């Protein structure tokens, strides 16, 4: 029998660690200590999550969970996502330090806020109760509102934060109402109980449908899926660039893992109840429609952008659409594909945003695509890295983005959503235009004075780690898939 404290180690470490960093910040003026402690905490999260991965899911299922009253899910998929979130936090910290210094905004709150957001994400990934899920989503979202308005003297940062806050509260309301209806329908908040109730037919089907619909709305807002995506470009654009990468990768992954948790327990219950099958198929079809619209609209909007950061912001909407395919598939394979894509997407998008932040001149200069012309001559390594990220985002082998798409497409086809795959393929072709366009600008366009910015060690670390991640996931996807030696 495993002690529950050992299983809860990742959660405890990150929760206590983030508060510790917050207190350290108040106690000392030494920024270095706070920065390095934050890194240590995130490393601790990653390592402890890796440690819990070794336990077999069946053994964990038998473990005594009285302390958490069975509201927390341990090991398996949640541990994999812990590692993804820890990685996301680390990459963000590395990239943000010098970025903030250059913009004269190095305030330690940034680090503790990132840690707190990670706490929210970890809670979502570990939730076995709808209330835990809601708490995690809210904790993360509230931190995100603050991070978005971090440059508080920039008006569009404030505008973005305000918009995000207002619309986010709107969406949280729906999420909570959906949770309430599901509770009303099945009489439980514990997800494993809910699926048992559904399997035995003890539930109110109308409440369940509406509850599912409202939860879909709330979570799709957090994922930034159509038609709830409009806040995303503003927010990703208004946030500090190093943070934007965090919002649209880790934040998105957290919202997606929430969807995975719900889909796994509520949408894919094994039962012969015809009514239920009909309902879950409807829910999946709605998600499929949302996914299709999201990728098309996201890519088409990105097509017109002249600003790199905005282009990446819109493309991030499109990627949410791709990842939703894994949830539409609603199979183990689909959920694996979601986790895989989240990991790859983390590396490529954070890497790309880190480069944008690196190149960004104070007060948001150097952000147009045309500013990147001939980057090859001044920063050959950065240009090559950016090219790799763009190729990976476009889904070209041997980069990780290719396998990410491959697994998602295969999962969707196997679940009978060939039409969705075809739409995804068309959307990917459209996206080639702007991804390759940026490479074209960096490599083949002449520029009298190509931009030249100084050295930034931390950012380079982020970029280097991201490159390694993108390539490793592309040439050895097994390494990551080896983590999935569990059945949830």
């Amino acid at each position, binding site marked *: 029998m495993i002690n529950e404290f050992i299983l809860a180690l990742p959660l405890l470490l990150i929760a206590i660690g983030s508060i510790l960093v917050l207190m350290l910040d108040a106690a000392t003026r030494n920024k270095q200590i706070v920065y390095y402690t934050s890194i240590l905490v995130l490393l601790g999260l990653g390592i402890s999550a890796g440690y819990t991965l070794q336990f077999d899911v069946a053994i964990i299922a038998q473990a005594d969970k009285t302390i958490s009253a069975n509201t927390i899910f341990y090991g398996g998929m949640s541990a994999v996502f812990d590692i993804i979130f820890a990685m996301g936090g680390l990459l963000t910290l590395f990239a943000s330090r010098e970025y903030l210094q250059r913009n004269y905004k190095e305030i330690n709150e940034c680090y503790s806020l990132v840690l707190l957001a990670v706490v929210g994400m970890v809670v979502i990934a570990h939730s076995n109760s709808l209330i835990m899920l809601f708490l995690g989503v809210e904790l993360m979202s509230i931190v995100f509102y603050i991070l978005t308005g971090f440059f508080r003297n920039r008006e569009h940062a404030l505008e973005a934060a305000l918009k995000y806050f207002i619309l986010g509260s709107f969406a949280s309301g729906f999420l909570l109402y959906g949770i309430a209806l599901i509770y009303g329908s099945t009489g439980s908040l514990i997800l494993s109980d809910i699926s048992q109730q559904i399997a035995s037919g003890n539930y109110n089907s109308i409440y369940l449908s509406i509850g599912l619909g409202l939860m879909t709305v709330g979570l799709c807002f957090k994922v930034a899926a159509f038609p709830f995506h409009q806040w995303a470009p503003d927010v990703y654009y208004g946030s500090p660039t190093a943070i934007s990468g965090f919002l649209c990768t880790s934040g998105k992954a957290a919202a997606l893992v929430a969807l995975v948790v719900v889909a796994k327990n509520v949408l894919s219950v094994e039962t012969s109840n015809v009514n239920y099958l009909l309902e879950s198929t409807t829910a999946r079809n709605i998600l499929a429609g949302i996914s299709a619209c999201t990728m098309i609209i996201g890519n*088409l909007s990105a097509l017109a952008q002249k600003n790199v950061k905005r282009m990446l912001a819109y493309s991030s909407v499109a990627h949410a659409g791709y990842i939703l395919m894994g949830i539409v598939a609603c199979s183990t394979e689909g959920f694996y594909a979601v986790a895989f894509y989240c990991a790859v997407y983390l590396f490529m998008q954070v890497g790309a945003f880190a480069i944008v932040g690196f190149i960004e001149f104070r007060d948001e200069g150097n952000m147009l695509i045309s500013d990147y012309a001939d980057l090859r001559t001044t920063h050959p390594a950065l240009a090559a890295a950016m090219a790799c990220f763009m190729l990976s985002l476009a889904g070209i082998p041997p980069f990780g983005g290719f396998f990410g798409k491959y697994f998602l497409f295969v999962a969707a086809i196997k679940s009978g959503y060939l039409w969705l795959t075809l739409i995804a393929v068309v959307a990917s072709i459209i996206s080639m235009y702007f991804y390759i366009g940026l490479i074209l600008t960096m490599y083949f366009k002449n520029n009298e004075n190509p931009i030249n910015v100084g050295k930034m060690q931390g950012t380079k670390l982020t970029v280097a780690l991201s490159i390694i991640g993108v390539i490793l996931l592309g040439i050895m996807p097994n390494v990551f898939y080896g983590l999935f030696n569990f059945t949830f």
Partner: protein
Amino acid sequence: MYDLVKFVPLLPLLGFLFLGLLGNKIKNEKIIGSIGCGTVGIAFVLLFSMFWNFIQAPPESAVIVPIYNWITIDDFNIQIAYQVDQLSLLFGMIITGVGFLIHVYSIGYMHGDRSFFRFFSYLNLFIFMMLNLVLANNFLVTFLGWEGVGLCSYLLIGFWYDKKFQGTRLTWTGDAANKAFITNRVGDYGFLIGMFLVFITFGTLEYTSVNQAASNAYMSYYGSGIMTAITIMFFLGCTGKSAQLPLAIWLPDAMAGPTSVSALIHAATMVTSGIFLIARNSVLFALAPDTMTVVLVVGIITAFTAASVGLVQNDLKKVLAYSTVSQLGFMFAALGAGAFTAGVFHVMTHAFFKGLLFLAAGAIIHGMHDEQNIKKMGGLKSYMPKTYFTFLIATFAISGIPFFSGFFSKDEILWSVYANNGILPWAILAISALFTAFYMFRLLYLVFFGKERFNCEHGKPHEAPATMTIPLIILAFLSAFGGFLGIPDVLGSWASESPNLIHNYLSPIFADANRVLHSHAGHSSHSSILELGLMLVSVLLAVFGIYKAKQYYSDPAWTSPRKLVRNYNGIYRMLLSKYKLDEFYFAVVVDTLLNFSKNFLWKIFDVKGIDGVVNGTAKGTLAFADVARKIQSGIVQNYALLMTAGIVAILCIYIFI
């Protein structure tokens, strides 16, 4: 022995890494050049020694040489492994052999270029990718190479990225590179979907197992929807990479790259990968008669269209580019008619003579100081005798003059199209062959004969250096005699039982496909008199084309062509503007998408006020004011409105469906 195949792609890869990382430290062009050529040359020697072993004692089945396990997930297992068999050896030798000659040529051609090392590192990378494409034992590794060659093609087309380039809505070489890449992507996704469907149908991606499974159960697969879907998707991929209609538009613009690139990638090797893919999966295609018809029709239409456009172009490389598109059309027509060997044979001879034509064109452009307009050339024969001589041999070969290499391969295509599909497809191809002879000899007369129409402000034209002429001579030799590997039975039956060496060599590869084809179509026999007669007709047509070209263009005033242009101005303009295909694509696809995105999604869906901020500091305070105003005018409500509409829609679906 066959384990050596591991080193074949490895060498160019090492060359690429070495030159790419350390090339700018080595200033010496000779060292860079010899490394670049050496890796490809050794790869050729390795392949040739394997080939030699192979024909001495052919193994029972293809030899699979595993490298490493790429992915293993439950039942999904992808190995990186190479497959050594007749087809991959033949293609590998074409790629490394012709590639080696073109590498050597490039030492002279790129002499003095500021990015000499970059050029050779890209070329090496290309060879690596191309070898992966043809040596792969499964679809995914081929796809890797398929994407990789696309990337190299992109890098090399845009190699002189600061050079102006004239094309429809293209102003510099980078645009041409972009166009090639994006057009290719459309085809690549066809490949990708085809691959998914193969995996779902057969549960594996390995060529040997897929072909085995398909041919074992051919009765149930023949003509089935899934086979048609798979093959059509793959063929879409082929139309992209091998520049067939409707995706042919990128190849003529790809001529923006250095000429040796045009020779290597856009004539001899990469563009034939579509042929390779179909030949590799001949069983799948044989099982889908509808797709075969599509392949045939597309091939014939492309051959004819491109040849007709080639008649009137004035840019030396453009003529050759359209000629390539047209010749690729011939190859696809052969595949569509079920004559897989003929298609592959034409790949080989075409690699010789088209590679030669491009290299000679490069020598001409080099000697003429970057002039490409054939109307500004003339009389070059006396200045560049070696180039002239080799160009002449290649022209004979492509025109199908008897006993030059092109004659054998083209004639085999024409005959098999006639034998399987009747007189009409044959006639269209024969007319295309007539056009080919005409435009090639038009080129020859305008460039090498007649009065000198260039001015000598840059100095007189001069012969190319030895590093350039030696590859020309070797290729000329191959263009002249390479065809004897495939003597048709009707001509060689007096000498031996089966004189067609290439046929004998490739027959195990296509045995399954031919079995499927014959079991359904029956083997119709035609008399050898008829075959000889048709051969004679096609030779006469070629001679007629040559005669007309001589008649038109040996006259210094070009009286008759000018009269033709006046009398048939409409047709002339249509051909000159390439049937307006580029304009069509821009108007229908590119502009529509961009406008939709710009005017609708961005300006209406998004806030106009953000636009000001996008421009950042430039608009400064004004933008802030604008944003502030916009916040108060209530944009958030708009967002919330759309959200509410979405919520209502979703709930309605839940409740009412």
